[in-house]
């Protein structure tokens, strides 16, 4: 039942948005074509912003994996990971995610290329990237903007929430695909 709902959502989300958003906007008097062009133009700025971190992380993770260091360091965790069915390849993604969103995106893209977009590893990487946040960055920007220095329990909550999201993403992926 829930699986069917998920399937339905995946199949119809994009067609629905494509019809609903422009129609709604047009009815509200928006010049939809011009608005779309303006938004699409921002893609260059977005890519320009994430590109440096992409290069940096792809090189570092590429070297880390090609050297065999990834296997070496994930070996002690291997029995636990294997029992859970959790692929060790995504560990660098989890390590980088709380600090750098674009860095983690680079790792995700690399995993997707290495294993395929529809492989279990590729899907898990995408689900992890999409469901967790750049916690330290968000906290620094938000609190920093108003001069708050004592974050109290916010770091704990943010990191634990990410851990919950990662665990849930793993379970949902295993269940749905």
């Amino acid at each position, binding site marked *: 039942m829930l699986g069917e709902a998920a399937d339905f959502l995946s*199949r119809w989300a994009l067609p629905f948005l494509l019809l609903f958003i422009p129609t709604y906007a047009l009815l509200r008097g928006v010049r939809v074509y011009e608005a779309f062009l303006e938004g699409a133009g921002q893609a260059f700025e977005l890519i320009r912003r994430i590109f440096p971190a992409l290069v940096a992380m792809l090189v570092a993770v590429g*070297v880390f994996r090609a050297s065999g260091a990834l296997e070496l360091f994930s070996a002690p965790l291997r029995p636990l990971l294997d029992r859970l069915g959790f692929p060790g390849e995504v560990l660098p993604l989890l390590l980088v995610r709380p600090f750098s969103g674009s860095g983690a995106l680079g790792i995700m893209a690399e995993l*997707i290329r290495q294993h395929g977009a529809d492989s279990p590893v590729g899907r898990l990487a995408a689900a992890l990237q999409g469901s967790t946040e750049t*916690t330290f960055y*968000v*906290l620094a920007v938000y609190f920093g903007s108003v001069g708050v220095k004592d974050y109290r329990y916010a770091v704990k909550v943010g990191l634990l929430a990410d851990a919950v999201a990662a665990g*849930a993403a793993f379970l949902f992926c295993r269940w749905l695909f």
Partner: protein
Amino acid sequence: MMNLIWWGLLLCGVGVAVGTGRVEEISRAALEATRLSVELAIGLLGVAGFWLGLMKVAAESSLLQHLVRFLRPLLRWLFPEVPAGHPAEEAIALNLGANLLGLGNAATPFGLEAMRHLQDLNRGSSTASPAMCTLLALNTSSVTVVPVLVLSVRAAAGAANPTDIIAPILGATLTSTAAAVALDRYFRRREERAGRSR
């Protein structure tokens, strides 16, 4: 911290490569990575442009402002110390709504505006108020319906159905948001109890 992680990855990579004699492999991997980053950036440009365009249309239609009305009762429950009708309420609603729709670029300005109003209520203290912690808990776990960049990468990599990742991400973020709200309350109560007994 990213400085240490980045350097650590390179150090371990080169160190292990020297130990295992895979020096040529890592040189090749490094150059391969630079090529991949360009491919990726160009592949992303098209799909990200498409999403950002669609999202801009949504933003112009003030769809968000209409949706956030439904968030009001929820906000009263989440932020009891924010007076009803306070400007902070509006900004928080827009921030959460923008996150929900994957309008990451729009969410941050609304979020920072909300922080400014909450800091007024907090009388400019350098210690976070409970409302700020709740806002951050929601932002670091945010419920995501349209993860723009993830969808873009999947589409650029030739996924059969790039959007089929929406369901697990929505499920995972709903779970983590519920957990974040519960943890936020738990740690706040614990801190208040510890404060009273001191």
